[in-house]
Structures are given as structure tokens and as C-alpha cells.
């Protein structure tokens, strides 16, 4: 039988050291070490243990929140009653086509089933053994697969979606009864047969609305026990950096049209990169603000070829105290802060020393380590708004700052998740990252800075969303309604359709209460307060 141990916390912190609060029951489940003839029996045994914990939580009148690597900078993984750490639940399988639905469009050997606690690194490792890969990951690989999709982890592959867009099926546990183990996939894109659902002991559900809502479910659609992922054939990317003029950069950001551009001579004129993003230091003089990082698809290097690989033999780290010092300096002195941001730039901007290095997705976006408290705020925007929005952000960083942060732009193809923050057809992600700071007579408080940014974007009629796993002024009035409009009600309706009534309260949290996400859908199905800016 799978084992769960319980501890309590006076003040739980996430991986990046942001204090969250006390936790009365902090639970950790490990797979059974009993001898079982089939690893699927271990999977079903773990499901039974989760159902036991859910029943216990319900009977105690408490709430339950699962989490994995705790990488989210927001309070999304936190719940004061019961938190469940599931990273040790890491079974995984490749799926042969005998489990495919006859109507499926997915080819053989492309689909995998991962239990919730597999990290992105573990996902990539299994795929590699079959010559497969994820199309893209986030900047690093430590998130669990369930956590990554629940918050919408993305990279900057311009023609690909986020990690959640590789999901074709979800195995959810929504209560303690046999029918509460469900496998959900889109009716419009069937993948696996009912025989597969029976194999994993789940009730088969085909429903686009429920699947798209549960895909970025924020922990409110039950316990994500398993995720069916589609893969692509393994490929290699060659990486470069390049200083870029602001106007040229913004034209590319607005159009992603590379037909008249030579980014890197070796890759020819008009070549579209696979990965593309900008780093921006608005405190540098004009012409030196933008640095582009790009990657091109290339053939696998031959054994005789001498190529630079992305993973170094020795990796050095800056003193973590530097970030604390920078935060203190920004708050208490601030004079000449822009000069000190060079330190930050060294840590955030890509280095050109290794231009030309070649590796797989898993090699380029490899391990990262704890680096102390960090700040990261990401906005999802429609592509046509990026010029105006980045103008607003950099203007505020200069006029209200300097703040201890630098900016960036990434590009992600829009996804189908109802509450995915990459919901725009071609989503531009505008972000600023650095160290968190407090307000003082020398500097505007962090949340006030974000509020002013919200106000300016709203005044310019620019629709936006926020990365669920990063920071924001989440308590801002009506934020989620502005970001998602009628999608919010559709998400709630799907949640109320899927979850047993008695367990809706179990799968929520104070954070979701604050965001207005835990209540019922409105009866008319409408969204009375949706602002005009919603696209």
C-alpha cells in the first residue's frame, strides 16, 4: 500500500523562499514498496491512497491542495489545512497503439502516461529513450508535470504552445468513490480507448469544455493523478544571442515575420527561428536596451563534430546574498541603482560566450538551483498590443523606478485551455524579473507598481492575463474577471459539472477564494461585469 507521512509547518515557504503560512497537515505520499506483478497495480494502489486522503479531508471539513516542486511564485500551491506533496509518485509508461481509440489522429509511439510527480526532467528522460521530446519546456526542468500544466508553464518557441498544450488526456481523482476516478480527453481530438480507461481503473469522459477547463485547473478540478502527453521526434537546437535595435526588435515582436531579416549569417536570410525572445534593460542607453536570444533547428551533430554543448562541466553561482543586498539597496538608498543592475543583468541576460552551442530541448533548458528570493511577473498579451504594452512597461520602469528588475518578451502560440494565460492566438509574454522589493520614500511599493501597470494597460484598452505561477498584485480588484471575461464562467461551469458537490469545497483554497474562482457559475451563464477590453 502507498504510504503517506504527515508533518506540520508553522510557516511553509515555496522553493523560492516566499513565505506562505502555516500548514496543519503537510502530507507526503510514496509509492508502495510491496512486490506487485504490474506497475499499473502500483498506480491504482496510489489512486486508492489519494481517495482515502480525500475522504479523510472531506470528513474533517478541511481543504486539500496537491503540489509538486513548489516552484510557483504565487500562492497557488498553498492551503493552510492540508497540502499534499506528490513528487514521489513518478510512474511512467509509453503507450502502444493498441490502447489508441480507432478514431484517433495520434500516430503510434507518440503518447506517454506520466503520474503526477514526474518532473519535466523525468518526462524528457523517458521520451529521449524512444527518440522523442517535448516540443518545449520552461526555462528549467524541475517542475512536476501536474504543476507545470496547472499553472501554464511555457517557453518561447514561437510556433508551439506551453507545456499544457502537449496534454491529450487527464486522469483526475475527484472523490472517494470508484466513479470518482476519471479519464478526461477532448471529444474533438480523441486519443485513447475506453479499454485504456478501464486499464487504469477510470471512468472515460470525452468533453472539450471539461478538458479545456481542467487543463489549467489551478488545483480546483480534483487531484491530477496522471497526464497523457504527446511527444514530437527528438530534435536539436542551435542557440545564439544578438544585440538588436529597439525598432527592429519591436517590428519583429509585432509580426514574427522573419522573411526580410538575417538574424544569424550562418542560418541564412529570412530563416524563422524555433525559439525567439528578447531581454530588455530599459536603463541602458538607446540602442543597447534589447538583446535577442534565438535557437534554430539543426540536424543532430555527428560523432566526429566538435560542438559546444549547453550543459557546462562546471557551473558557478553568484552569492545569494547579492540579491538580498540589491533588494535592500533599492528600498533604502536607490541612488545609482541602474548601475548596480549590471549585476542583475549578468544573472538574467543570456551570455554570448557560448553562441553556437547545440543541444536538445532538455539540454538547453536544464537544471537550475535555489538562488534566493526572486521576482518574476509575466503578462500574456495579444501580439498586436506588444509595442504599446512594452512602451508602457519600460516607461513606468524609468519614471516610477528605477526598480531592481529587467524586462523581457517571449512568444507562445495560443492554447485551448479555458483559463490558460497564453489564451491569445499568438501570445506575447511581457515580463519583468529581478529581486522583490519593499516600498519606501525612495521607491514605489512593488504592488503599487504592478497596479499602475494594470491601470495603464486598462486605460489603453489592452487585454492581458497573468502567468498563474508567477507574481502579481493578485488581490487587485476584479483582476480575474478582466483577464478572462466569459471564460471565467465557462471554467466554473465545467468545474461544477465535473466535481461531486460534496468535494467542490475540498478542492479550493483561500487564494482561489480571493480570486473569485471557488464559487458557483452565474446562473445566466453570462458575465455581467466583463470589461470591454476582453478580446
Amino acid at each position, binding site marked *: 500500500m502507498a504510504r503517506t507521512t504527515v508533518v506540520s509547518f508553522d510557516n511553509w515557504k515555496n*522553493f523560492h523562499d516566499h513565505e506562505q503560512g502555516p500548514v496543519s497537515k503537510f502530507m507526503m505520499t510514496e509509492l508502495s514498496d510491496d512486490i506487485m506483478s504490474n506497475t499499473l497495480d502500483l498506480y491504482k494502489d496510489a489512486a486508492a491512497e489519494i481517495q482515502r486522503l480525500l475522504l479523510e479531508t472531506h470528513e474533517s471539513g478541511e481543504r486539500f491542495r496537491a503540489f509538486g516542486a513548489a516552484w510557483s511564485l504565487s500562492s497557488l500551491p498553498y492551503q493552510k489545512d492540508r497540502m499534499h506533496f506528490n513528487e514521489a509518485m513518478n510512474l511512467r509508461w509509453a503507450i502502444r497503439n493498441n490502447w489508441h481509440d480507432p478514431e484517433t489522429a495520434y500516430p503510434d509511439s507518440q503518447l506517454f502516461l506520466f503520474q503526477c510527480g514526474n*518532473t519535466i526532467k523525468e518526462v524528457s528522460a523517458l521520451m529521449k529513450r524512444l527518440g522523442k521530446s517535448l516540443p518545449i519546456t520552461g526555462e528549467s526542468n524541475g517542475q512536476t508535470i501536474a504543476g507545470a500544466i496547472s499553472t501554464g508553464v511555457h517557453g518561447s518557441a514561437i510556433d508551439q504552445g506551453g507545456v499544457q498544450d502537449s496534454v491529450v488526456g487527464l486522469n483526475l481523482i475527484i472523490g472517494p468513490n470508484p466513479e470518482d476516478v476519471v479519464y478526461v480527453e477532448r471529444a474533438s481530438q480523441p486519443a485513447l480507448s475506453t479499454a485504456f480507461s478501464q486499464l487504469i481503473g477510470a471512468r472515460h469522459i470525452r468533453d472539450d469544455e471539461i478538458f479545456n477547463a481542467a487543463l489549467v485547473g489551478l488545483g480546483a478540478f480534483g487531484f491530477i493523478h496522471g497526464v497523457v502527453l504527446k511527444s514530437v521526434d527528438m530534435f536539436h537546437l542551435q542557440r545564439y544571442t544578438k544585440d538588436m535595435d529597439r525598432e527592429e526588435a519591436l517590428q519583429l515582436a509585432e509580426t514574427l515575420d522573419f522573411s526580410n531579416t538575417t538574424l544569424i549569417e550562418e542560418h541564412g536570410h529570412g530563416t524563422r527561428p524555433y525559439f525567439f525572445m528578447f531581454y530588455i534593460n530599459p536603463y541602458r542607453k538607446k540602442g543597447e536596451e534589447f538583446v535577442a536570444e534565438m535557437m534554430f533547428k539543426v540536424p543532430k551533430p555527428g560523432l566526429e563534430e566538435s560542438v559546444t554543448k549547453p550543459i557546462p562541466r562546471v557551473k558557478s553561482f553568484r552569492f545569494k546574498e547579492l540579491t538580498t543586498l540589491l533588494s535592500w539597496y533599492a528600498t533604502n538608498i536607490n541612488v545609482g541603482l541602474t548601475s548596480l543592475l549590471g549585476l542583475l543583468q549578468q544573472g538574467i541576460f543570456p551570455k554570448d560566450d557560448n553562441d553556437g552551442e547545440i543541444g536538445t530541448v532538455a539540454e538547453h533548458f536544464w537544471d537550475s538551483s535555489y538562488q534566493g528570493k526572486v521576482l518574476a511577473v509575466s503578462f500574456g498579451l495579444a501580439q498586436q498590443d506588444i509595442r504599446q504594452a512594452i512602451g508602457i512597461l519600460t516607461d513606468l520602469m524609468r519614471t516610477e523606478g528605477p526598480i531592481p528588475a529587467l524586462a523581457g518578451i517571449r512568444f507562445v502560440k495560443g492554447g485551448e485551455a479555458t483559463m490558460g494565460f497564453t489564451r491569445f492566438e499568438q501570445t506575447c509574454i511581457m515580463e519583468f524579473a529581478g529581486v522583490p522589493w519593499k516600498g519606501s520614500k525612495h521607491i514605489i511599493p512593488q504592488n503599487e507598481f504592478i497596479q499602475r501597470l494594470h491601470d495603464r494597460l486598462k486605460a489603453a484598452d489592452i487585454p492581458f492575463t497573468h502567468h498563474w505561477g508567477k507574481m502579481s498584485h493578485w488581490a487587485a480588484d476584479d483582476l480575474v474577471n478582466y483577464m478572462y471575461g466569459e471564460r471565467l464562467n465557462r471554467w466554473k461551469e465545467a468545474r461544477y459539472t465535473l466535481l461531486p458537490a460534496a468535494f467542490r469545497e475540498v478542492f479550493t483554497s483561500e487564494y482561489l477564494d480571493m480570486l473569485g474562482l471557488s464559487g458557483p457559475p452565474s446562473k445566466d451563464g453570462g458575465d455581467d461585469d466583463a470589461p470591454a477590453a476582453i478580446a
Partner: protein
Amino acid sequence: MTPFMLFVLVWFMVPVDYSFTVTSRDGVGEKDPTNLSEDELRGMKVNVIDTVLHLKATDEIPLFIQDCGEVGFYRVQVSQTLSGFVLHTLSLGRKRKVNVKYVCIKPSQDIAVPWLGQQ
């Protein structure tokens, strides 16, 4: 300043802890979410060897035998301190202070490619 005072001053001024860490490129470390240490072992299930070895003049490098499953070590951090170095010197090599922290590879079930439904 007496030689003793100079010794004490040097003791505190010389960086007393120089450590290095070796990590697996492709492995994943075993996790412990209750470990909130502020270093590169944060969030990991850390095992510690902290002891002073008493060696005979004929003993070679000691071998510590630890249980890390079948797949091995994910990360090993070796710390050398000035006090350990002094102890080793003053004892003419008979005493050796050992401070090692290590993390095992996260357990997993698959050795070959696991196909779904395979017995």
C-alpha cells in the same frame, strides 16, 4: 601581537569553509519538501556523514558505504574546514574530519522502456 593572537586572527580571517559539489547531469535528486535550507540542497532529501575518523598509520583512503538504492548518488557535497585541516595536521594524519552531504537519485520503477500494460 603574540603568535597565539596571530594564529587566532588568521583562523578567523582565512575562509574556513571551502567546499565543492558534484552532481549528476541526467539524474533527478530525491526530494524532501520540508528541507528549507538556503543552499543548493534546498528541497532535497539530504543524508549527512559528519564524523572524525581515527586512522592507523597503515590505513589508506577510507571507504564510506551508504545505501542509495540501485541507481546511485545524485549530488555529493564535500566540505573542508580549517579546523579539520588543523586537526589532521596536529594528529600527524591519524585523525580525519569528514563532512559530506549527499542526495540519492529519486527512485523510479523503470529500468527498460516501460510499455503500458506490459507484465
